[in-house]
């Protein structure tokens, strides 16, 4: 790890001011330090957000949805029975996120802003497209874990976070604050649209601090569930994961969301797939039609074709689960 200077910010404003070019905010450090040790990131200054009051914890106000502080350790969300009553999907998504030690240290903001796990990207000796090179090595290379859909020319990475699809399925927004002001964006828009061909994975601007995640009241009305396929029983990034959420009225799925992780450079949603099931009671056939629409544009690489049937099956199971609950 290259030496750097360190500062512990005491307010969001101060943190934002400190995060100048070449600096990085530090939350739990469980992703950032890994990138730095691996030679993928080498900030000259780390701005520790851990000392800022008011970013840790969650609250629920009637009618105003749910607010989760960006510095909340993942474990606190996972273990809260109260939160599980409002938004059970979070516990489901976090139970097999990384490990207890990493969830003790890792935070909500850090999890949403973690960088992808492509093994070419994570190897400092490989100058891939995302790191400023000219090609994606996975495309013709070892691509069993890579994207099957939504890839632009540049990059076949997959979105790694388990929390992101789960929260997107409940229409979460995030608040981003900098010295220039505060904006609120859909969590889905925190991830750079691959079609833009950008070498940034997130739309966070320099100096912006993610302070809060909000789940609107309407999002909380949905029943959601999260399923994750892994290469071992735990401590693995998703081969494919799926978050689904919908209101169930009279046995029918209303206003549904289906979000896939592990298949595309960003958490993957297709509105046509959701429209297909909106207003219908669950059936295997309906789920299959939705899954087909969701993956209609899938263009697997040489070694990841298995993700298509896997994703479809997980979508079917997840929908069946919320319909039955």
């Amino acid at each position: 790890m290259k030496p750097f200077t360190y500062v512990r910010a005491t307010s969001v404003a101060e943190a934002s001011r400190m995060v100048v070019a070449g600096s990085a905010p530090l939350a739990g450090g469980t992703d950032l330090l890994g990138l730095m040790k691996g030679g993928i990131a080498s900030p000259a200054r780390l701005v520790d957000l851990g000392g800022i009051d008011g970013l840790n914890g969650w609250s629920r106000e009637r009618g105003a949805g749910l607010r989760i502080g960006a510095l909340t350790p993942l474990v606190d969300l996972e273990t809260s029975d109260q939160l599980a009553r409002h938004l059970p999907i979070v516990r489901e998504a976090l139970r097999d996120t990384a490990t207890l030690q990493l969830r003790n240290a890792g935070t909500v903001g850090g999890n949403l802003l973690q960088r992808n796990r492509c093994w070419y990207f994570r190897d400092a000796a490989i100058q891939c497209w995302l790191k400023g090179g000219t090609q994606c090595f996975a495309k013709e290379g070892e691509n069993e874990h890579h994207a099957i859909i939504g890839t632009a020319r540049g990059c076949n990475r997959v979105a790694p976070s388990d929390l992101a699809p789960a929260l997107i399925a409940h229409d979460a927004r995030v608040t981003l604050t900098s010295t220039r002001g505060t904006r609120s964006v859909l969590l889905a828009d925190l991830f750079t649209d691959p079609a833009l061909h950008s070498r940034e994975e997130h739309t966070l601007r320099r100096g912006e601090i993610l302070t809060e995640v909000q789940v609107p009241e309407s999002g909380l009305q949905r029943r959601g569930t999260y399923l994750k396929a892994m290469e071992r029983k735990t401590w693995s990034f998703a081969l494919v994961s799926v978050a689904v959420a919908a209101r169930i009225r009279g046995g029918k799925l209303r206003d549904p969301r289906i979000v896939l992780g592990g298949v595309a450079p960003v958490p993957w949603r297709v509105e046509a797939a959701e429209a297909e099931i909106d207003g219908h009671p669950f059936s295997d056939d309906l789920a299959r039609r939705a899954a087909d629409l969701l993956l209609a544009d899938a263009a697997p690489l040489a070694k990841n074709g298995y993700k298509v049937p896997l994703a479809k099956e997980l979508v079917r199971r997840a929908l069946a689960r919320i319909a039955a609950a």
Partner: protein
Amino acid sequence: MPTVRPSGPGAVDVELDVNGIRTPLHVAPHTTLLDALREDVGLLGAKKVCDEGTCGACTLLVDGRAVYACMTLAVACAGRSVETVEGLARDGELHPVQEAFIAHDAFQCGFCTPGQIMSVVALLRATPSPSADEVMRAVSGNLCRCGAYPNIVEAALAAARKGKERP
């Protein structure tokens, strides 16, 4: 408005509470808690196996929570309490979890053991009577290449039972 100033990149002073002892350190900001303990404090129980948060051998407790010391900056622990495997035995008497690890043969080479034990200690403090599933979730961030897993789970459950028997 007063502004804090960045420290480093050279060594800076921080004070940690290590196993109940105030421990002043003079380390660069990029020094991990693991390196600080192993190289500066001389506590060699926590092991450096991967140095990137993928094995669990460096597990210890910061403010009572199990974390990977290799993924924690020493400067970020200023003023916090750090507990390592060296701090468990009291007056030469082993901690019940340590006892149970021996009785149930919960290790072979022993390299993962300090980390496993710290994970179990943290679990039993929060959940004195865990189920086998809870034990497995608590130690699933600690790899054991020798495969002592079944005995680790047994040891943790046995330590929990012992803990309950005691007044």
